[in-house]
């Protein structure tokens, strides 16, 4: 509770400091939470003929600073990269990321942020790079970012049109969230 109010105080100070027509920005390194909890990797193994096989990691809680509860969310930008380190077979791998206010919420289809899914082809023992970019997230998810925590779950969607096992692991190498709010604190 105290930590919450310290966070509130920091944000309040910043917002009061930015009073006028200023904005308050948050650069949140989502990757630091995921890699710290060993949730940056999704191993995949899709048998021949598999289509859109979903492989998920478990949800991870991310801390945001509290105190922006009444703020107007201006921009939510997500950028990141993922290495697709294939070990065998060939096919395609797409990534969906689910953001929700609690762990269970990340399992709702509506919590998905990518549409369409970013995807890349993989083959042999090559490593492909999947680029993740959302210039401005849908406004329907704005309210998530005015809370003090947010939950993230990643799901790989694997398709294997080949005749051999498609196997490897998707390793997140960076995931940043840029949140800009207008200074309507109160």
């Amino acid at each position, binding site marked *: 509770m105290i*930590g919450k109010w310290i966070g509130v105080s920091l944000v309040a100070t910043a*917002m009061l400091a930015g*009073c006028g027509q200023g904005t308050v*920005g948050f650069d949140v390194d989502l990757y630091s939470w995921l890699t710290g909890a060993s949730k940056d990797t999704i191993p995949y193994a899709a048998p021949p003929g598999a289509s859109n096989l979903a492989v998920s990691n478990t949800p991870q809680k991310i801390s945001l600073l509290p105190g922006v509860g009444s703020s107007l969310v201006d921009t939510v930008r997500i950028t990141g990269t993922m290495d697709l380190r294939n070990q065998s077979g060939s096919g395609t791998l797409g990534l969906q990321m689910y953001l929700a206010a609690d762990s269970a919420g990340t399992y709702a289809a509506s919590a998905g942020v990518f549409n369409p899914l970013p995807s890349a082809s993989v083959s042999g023992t090559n490593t492909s790079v999947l680029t993740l970019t959302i210039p401005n997230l849908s406004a329907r998810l704005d309210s998530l970012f005015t809370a003090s925590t947010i939950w993230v779950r990643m799901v790989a969607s694997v398709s294997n049109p080949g005749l051999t096992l498609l196997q490897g692991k998707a390793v997140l190498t960076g995931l940043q969230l840029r949140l800009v709010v207008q200074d309507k604190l109160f």
Partner: protein
Amino acid sequence: MRTTVVSFGLAALVCAYATPLSGQGFQTDARRIGMGGVNLTVDGSLRRYNPAYRAVPSRQFPGGAKLTIPVPLGLIQFFHDHPTSGFSTDPLFHPDSARFNPVELLDLVLNAPLFYELRKAPVPTNNVNFTIGKDNLVVDLGATQAVIPADRFGVVGSSRPVDIEPGFKGFHAGVMVWIHDQVQLQLGDSLLALLKEAHPAQHRTLYDLRDTAIVQGGIAPSIGYSGRLYGNDERALYIGVSAHYYIGAAYGRSGGSAGFTTGDTIFAGPNLVTPSITAQSSYSKWGNSTGHGIGADIGFAWVSGPIVFGFGINDIGATITWPDTRVDSVRWDTTANKAVTYASVLHVETKTKLPVSYLANVIYTLGGTTLGADLLNNGFGTTLHVGAEQRFGPLALRGGIARDQRKLVQFGWGGGLRAGPISLDVGFWTHSNAFSDQRGITLATSISIY
């Protein structure tokens, strides 16, 4: 919760705004405002800081009004914008309103809308940014870093709202009411680096704010003498001394620090940080035993033709002894995870000091021209006012500058039109808010009776 956040914001802004406020003072005389706030007549301000001015003949300061009545054009402006019939729904007064703006409300409290706000001090645009990672926190306040005080900041006031001392042949005796309030805050080094220099938050580091606050007041029977030490009406040295026996009615003081200590990881676990609170307060309530102390004021004034120079010091050696105070201590108990109050210590003798204030001023009067300057230190900061008035028959033109406690230069100008014993005066005064060096302009109007 919302109220708490609002309170926090207001408190923060009070601190931020307090310095310029105390530096400029609240004045109701458009004539003085038009001269940058300088005193060109022997009024209560000069006599309060320099007892020698009790003896200086008033003819040395021509032009002083018997009564000045402010014309509150600002109230018309205010009630036009905020009609009383709409107070119950006015967002200005309702924190629950989506349009409530604490900055606007605080500005109203600290700058009572007595006079017309010709141009409001612009609130600067500023973008601030947080960088957050599991083990990283950087707070970049942008241009606002410049106004984060690196030194101790707050408000200090030492006033005498009532001072009744009738005199006879230079001797005077009476009683005054004295009030001393002082709130000072100091950011700890780590918190200062976090906020002012955007340093990343460090592991196992205390980020704290230290405070010292004191409020005390009472009455003081006083006796003194003000008279001409030597010289004649054209050239003379005047001296004034006053001795006070301070009787304290009530007193309270608190000091300590509040903050938080980071852990091994900046954002980890259910509790991001460990609170750190240590505070000690001592007080003697109204009706408890009174405090006692003695102090003195001394001043002199040198008059040489059209020039008057004065220097006065107040509350020299004013130490108040409170024989029966109660001392409470509070600290954060990390085991219980709450603030714990320790057993009070009763019947403790405590000593407090009143800040020594001094005023130096000079006034030069020649014909229709009056120039003046004063330098005031109230124990916390120094303000400087320089101003002039030129009379052309019934018309007067005025101008002046001042340096406030933020060391910002402010400007005043104006004029007056006199008809017999009555004059209408107009004064313009620049002012700044805590977040900007840009200035707003206030239009002051008053009527003086001579």
